[in-house]
């Protein structure tokens, strides 16, 4: 499964600054292929998350197109596009994103509830084990540290065995050891055939990646 951005741009209106139109992403072209881990680095505010949202079908590009295999993502209505995201894309958003009303394990199984294609409990437990928070499976998200929540989000993104994984700074709050655990987990996922995009500040990540991209003022370049 290939996720491909073709010359996508995203313009925003901005109140302050000289011109009130500016590009968060400008003419980015990128393909995420199965089995490869693509690293995307760049300064804060350079447009990395915007590009990731464009790829995830969450933010409509103002120019350009995003294809999932042959399908033009934004030619689809919101309903089918959402369903496609649920079933083929694993997205790890920035920040802390667990649902407070659910336990850790329930959070991991949540994607399976959306369209009644449940993710087996064992699969959830196995994923929690892989990210090292299995003992917390019945805990409430408020009892978890930032790093633990981040790992929960990774497990959740993998729950429905997506073909593509989009990770926005998944190692943000993690210590060195856990950073390595997560990076090797992403690496292994790529080796198992996933197309992985890793947005990161981590220098160490470079060693795990097959391809390296930089984002600078909304402009994407391959290193």
């Amino acid at each position, binding site marked *: 499964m290939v996720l491909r951005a073709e010359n996508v741009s995203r313009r925003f209106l901005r109140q302050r600054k000289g011109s009130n139109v500016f590009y968060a992403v400008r003419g980015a072209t990128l393909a995420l292929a199965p089995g490869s881990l693509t690293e995307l680095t760049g300064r804060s505010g350079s447009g990395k*998350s*915007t590009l990731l*949202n464009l790829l*995830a079908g*969450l*933010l409509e590009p103002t120019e350009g197109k995003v294809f999932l295999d042959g399908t033009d993502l934004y030619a689809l209505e*919101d*309903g089918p596009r*959402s*369903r*496609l*995201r*649920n*079933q083929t*894309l694993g*997205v790890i*958003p*920035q*920040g*802390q*994103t*667990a*649902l*407070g*009303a*659910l336990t850790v394990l329930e959070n991991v199984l*949540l*994607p399976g*509830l*959306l*369209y*009644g294609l*449940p993710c087996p409990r064992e699969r959830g437990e196995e994923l929690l084990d892989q990210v090292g928070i299995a003992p917390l499976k019945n805990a409430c998200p408020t009892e978890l540290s930032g790093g633990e929540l981040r790992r929960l989000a990774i497990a*959740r993104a993998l729950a429905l065995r997506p073909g593509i994984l989009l990770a926005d700074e998944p190692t943000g709050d993690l210590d060195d050891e856990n950073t390595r655990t997560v990076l090797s987990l992403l690496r292994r996922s790529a080796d198992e055939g996933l197309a992985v995009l890793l947005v990161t500040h981590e220098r160490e990540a470079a060693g795990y990646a097959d391809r390296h991209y930089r984002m600078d003022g909304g402009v994407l370049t391959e290193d």
Partner: protein
Amino acid sequence: MKLERVLPMKNLRRKPARTAALVLLSAFLALSVFGGSVMVLSLRNGLKSYESRLGADIVAVPYQARTKGSFESILLQGIPGMFYMDEKYYNKICAIDGVEAAAPQFYLASTSAGCCSVPVQIIGFDPERDFTVQPWVRERYAGELGDGDIIVGSELTVPKDGTLTFYDTPCRIVAQLGKTGTGLDTAVYTNMSTIKAMMRSAESLGFHYLTDVDPDHAVSAVMIRVAEGYDAEAVTGDINVHVRHVEASAAAAMLSSVAGGLRSVSGVIVLLVAAVWVLAAAVLSIAFALISHERAKEFAVLRVLGASRNMLSRLLLAEAAIVSFSGAAIGASAAALIVFPFGKAISAAMELPYLMPPLGTVLAIGAASLLLSTVAGALSAALSAWRVSRNDAGLLLREGA
């Protein structure tokens, strides 16, 4: 869809105090509309029954009873009244042009009798001349009304042995009247010779109700039917002009004062219900706006995981629907608990006739209130649900980072 079944419940359970407050608020929606409409309907029903129960075009009572409103008290509140005039006035009334039929009645109040915790009105009538009591017999236990026999109102419990004792006079119950919602539901009816016997018995027991009138030649009220082609108002006027010491009232005029009271009470009820609804709907919409705001980031997360915009709306609406349905169920039950047992007391306090619609109608109103309140509760979340579905997931998650 499984998510809508699971997540709203979990969200509600997570904040039990807030959920309870919202449920309570929704309960007021159903409580007010159910209770209010049953009351308004019962009052209307009561008025209708009052109208037909009166059964006479004109009622004539002694002047002093009229001014004290004693007759209305009997009818509306079931407060026993005793007032008398000489039989000669009855004869004079019969002589008035346009009076087709006139049925005398003789009133006596029981002491707190064995049957009832409060004194009941005993009404003596002449079965031959009566046209307002006997048409209301609903159930006959024995034969015709003879001496020593009584007919009881619908609210009196008939004892096993079928007798009630008034002033040491045991009386056989021969029939029971249908429910009217008026004060007459607690009255006891008997023929003239029996009530006069009771009166004498009362005197010998030391109750002296009649000081200046001979009980054998006294009446309390006269029920009058107007002949075809005569105007009841005009005949009433004639009686009042020609028969001194008597005050006649046209039934229509008595009804119109009750109808006026009913209109104003109904108006107040409708206003109260409307106020409760406006207030509850406003508070509920604000609450759901706050809830959706508080959970904006969680909605964005769901979106990232593949929830469509419509699903987000449905999640919030489901939460609102659960709250408003459980609230409505509680409110409707509470209304039933209040309206059924206390309806009588409420009507007594309002001094208006009150007759509950048939059970089927009440149940239908209950079901409609339940539905209406649930829909209203869900609708109060509609705007928030729409807003939630418009939110930009990417933006929200960036903010939360």
